[in-house]
């Protein structure tokens, strides 16, 4: 039976986890490098093959223009949105990009869901290796504050990676699930989740019922562009400025060096969570940038970033109608909550010591695995009632937004709206769906536009009822019904910042094509490696004493086969290489026999000596 996993598709790292059927406990899966943390990095080779994870991360230093990190920041966003990002991240946005961002990596161009799909494929492969079984379904986590387009992009990524996405679960909610299993918590819980690129706060109520435990989210808020990345960029800015002033060196033209410096600074950041001070050493041409950073200094720098998290925290509490002191538990999630300043500030704010028992890097993936278990096997008597983070509305006269589903509504949620025509013989009614809290459509996020079809008739006669439903993954579905005929009408929703179904289909086809190409590529590499080792072994054998016993024609045959193989190796036909490997193997059989006989003879002799 194929397996189902839980995946935390993070900005910096991604993880895959599952629930152990024996123990009922969630567990993360480690990859080939022995860690469950898979860097969310993708790199394209000059030969067109793609690597993701640690192998790709290593290429950040050697091939920065073919390698991308933090792609999560681009998910579900438009070209206009990411202008700011481009100043801070080395994203090479394709100039041909229309609404959906397209990123250039080497010779190829990808959408963010395609890039995320490579990370998901890597994790899928880890899990398949672990189970020795196929994995075809997953629960994937998203920041609670992700909007519809960002959620759709994540689901598209899953689909492109060959995974049926059973559910998208909000990261803080997933963490609460994992903690709930671990600690058996009850009552009001705040989950403070500061990751690599996003910040979320969720307020939950844990309720015991006769059927099981209900995890009800009361309110959620956040910032999809606030996280450890911002701290790294801040440090990078300071260091680059100091280097420019002290050494008159501008690193602008050297993306590799910037990545190196970034790495050095991230290490310093990590060290400052343990030590009171650290030293940054970064060699420059003929000199060295060296600097001591104390924790106090570091905390002074980053305090404004950390303070930004408390705006959403206050908002979520206000929406839940609660005061900070009413929370019974506070849970810290995300790698950035390792910062002592974050821990101090959160403790100060809520007036209680936050939970940090579970590894903040792993807890979201563990929760995703728990939810996967609930969905596939009903493994745990738990029910998750999550909310939509943003209000849903439609544009009305004068560009004003009419709210249909308020933020923090429990999902699934729905709203119905009746539409009619304004002029005689009008055959279409344009609907513009938006997400956000502002009054005017231009200040909200455009989700989709669609046209309701109506037969020509006098104005105001048409009656079309549209049902907007936000499903349990937080994704919008639209259905329309003509009230006069009772007919359901297919609504083709054009996502403003997403891929259409047709585009995904095309990408799936392409990815299969590429998969074949990638497969051929891998076959070629393996065949070459094998050829290399057999040639090496043959050479060694020909130099041994046993080779003296070869007949002349046997020797000629080996030499001819070896030459042919060497020639084939410089080509790209892996089947040809395989065939010639077999030929050389055949040719060297007599040689192998002679060698075997010698070994046997030696053994027998040895035995005789012993016997004497």
């Amino acid at each position, binding site marked *: 039976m194929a397996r189902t996993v839980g995946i935390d598709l993070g900005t910096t790292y991604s993880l895959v986890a599952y629930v152990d059927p024996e123990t009922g406990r969630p567990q993360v899966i480690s990859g080939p490098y022995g860690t469950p943390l898979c860097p969310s990095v993708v790199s394209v080779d000059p030969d067109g093959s793609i690597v993701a994870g640690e192998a790709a991360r290593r290429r950040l230093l050697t091939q920065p223009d073919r390698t991308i990190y933090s792609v999560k920041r681009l998910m579900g966003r438009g070209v206009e949105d990411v202008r700011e990002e481009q100043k801070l991240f080395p994203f090479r946005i394709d100039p041909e990009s229309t609404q959906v961002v397209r990123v250039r990596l080497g010779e190829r161009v990808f959408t963010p869901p395609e890039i995320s799909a490579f990370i998901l494929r890597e994790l899928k492969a880890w899990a398949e290796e672990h189970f020795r079984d196929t994995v075809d379904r997953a629960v994937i986590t998203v920041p609670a504050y992700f909007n519809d387009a960002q959620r759709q992009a994540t689901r598209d990524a899953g689909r492109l990676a060959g995974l049926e996405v059973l559910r998208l679960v909000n990261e803080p909610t997933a963490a609460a699930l994992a903690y709930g299993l671990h600690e058996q918590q009850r009552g009001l819980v705040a989950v403070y989740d500061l990751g690599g690129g996003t910040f979320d706060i969720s307020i939950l109520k844990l309720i015991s019922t006769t*059927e099981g435990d209900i995890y009800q989210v009361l309110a959620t808020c956040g910032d999809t562009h606030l996280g450890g990345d911002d701290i790294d960029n801040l440090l990078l800015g300071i260091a680059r400025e100091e280097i420019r002033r002290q050494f008159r060196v501008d690193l602008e033209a050297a993306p590799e060096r910037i990545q190196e410096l970034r790495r050095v600074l991230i290490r310093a950041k990590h060290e400052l969570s343990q030590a009171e001070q650290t030293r940054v050493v970064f060699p420059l041409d003929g000199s060295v940038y060296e600097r001591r950073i104390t924790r106090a200094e570091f905390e002074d720098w980053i305090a404004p970033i950390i303070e930004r998290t408390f705006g959403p925290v206050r908002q979520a509490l206000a929406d839940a109608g609660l005061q900070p002191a009413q929370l019974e538990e506070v849970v810290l999630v995300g790698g950035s909550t390792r910062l002592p300043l974050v821990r101090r500030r959160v403790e100060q704010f809520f007036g209680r010591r936050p939970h940090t028992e579970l590894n903040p890097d792993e807890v979201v993936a563990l929760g995703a695995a728990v939810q996967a278990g609930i969905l596939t096997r009903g493994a745990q008597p738990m029910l998750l*009632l999550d909310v939509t983070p943003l209000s849903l509305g439609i544009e009305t006269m004068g560009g004003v937004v009419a709210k249909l589903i308020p933020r923090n*509504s429990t999902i699934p*949620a729905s709203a119905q709206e009746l539409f009619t025509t304004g002029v005689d013989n009008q055959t279409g009614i344009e609907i513009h769906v938006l997400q956000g809290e502002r009054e005017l459509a231009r200040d909200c996020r455009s989700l989709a536009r669609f046209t309701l079809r109506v037969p020509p008739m006098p104005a105001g006669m048409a009656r079309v009822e549209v049902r907007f439903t936000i499903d*349990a993954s937080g994704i919008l579905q639209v259905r329309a019904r003509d009230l006069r005929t009772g007919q359901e009408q297919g609504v083709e929703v054009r996502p403003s910042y997403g891929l259409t179904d047709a585009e995904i289909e095309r990408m799936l086809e392409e990815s299969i094509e590429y998969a074949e190409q990638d497969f051929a590529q891998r076959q070629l590499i393996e065949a070459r490696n094998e050829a290399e080792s057999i040639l090496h072994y043959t050479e060694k054998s020909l130099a041994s004493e046993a080779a003296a016993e070869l007949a002349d024609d046997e020797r000629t045959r080996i030499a001819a086969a070896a030459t042919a193989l060497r020639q084939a190796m410089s080509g790209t036909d892996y089947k040809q290489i395989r065939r010639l490997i077999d030929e050389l193997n055949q040719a060297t059989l007599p040689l192998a026999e002679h060698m075997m006989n010698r070994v046997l003879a030696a053994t027998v002799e040895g035995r005789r000596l012993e016997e004497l």
Partner: protein
Amino acid sequence: MSETQTLTSRELHCWSCGAAAGGAHFCPSCGKIQPLPPDIDYFTFFGLPRRLGLDAHALEAIYHELSWRLHPDRFAQASEAERRLSLDRAAQLNDAFRTLRDPVRRVEYLLWLSGRRREGETRQQAPPELLEEVFELNEVLEELRQARRNGGDGTAASLRRQLEAEQQKLETMLAAVDKELAEAAAAWDRALDSGAAVEPLFDRLNQILNRRSYIRNLVENVRQELAAD
């Protein structure tokens, strides 16, 4: 509930086994989840009479029980059709709970259901008894904005204190209106129980709601103005 709707509900048959399902969440015969009847109201969905006095705990208990049975998580392994029905039912459950648990929205909904109030209707005319208050408030707000433009910090601070006092006053008025609404709601339930006419109560409830919405907007404006500092 109207006669015709009761009739339609009775006619509903299970999509799976054909037994009479009467609009229930699940078929009484085969247990399969059923489609939402087209015009089912929130009270009926929760199996409650159309009364305005609702015990919050009892309502929440029903909500939790129905969540366990209707939530799409419980249908993850079911057929596509059943998953869709669960989505519709669970969405309706959440919409209904959001409306019914809030005493104000509950009244608005009941009036709307009775054809006495259109959704989202808020009369923006100031109720006569509030005119003086509104006038005073607008004056303070205007002065405060003026003072800010001129950079007069001292004046702004004293005006701010004045505004905070106004806010207090408004909050007190809001509490009074809420009390009034609760009394009118209780009167509605009593009329229902005794078989008396509820008709006269529609106007009273509508008026209270309009006044409430007006005061709420004022409170919101003042709050935003104070937060802008």
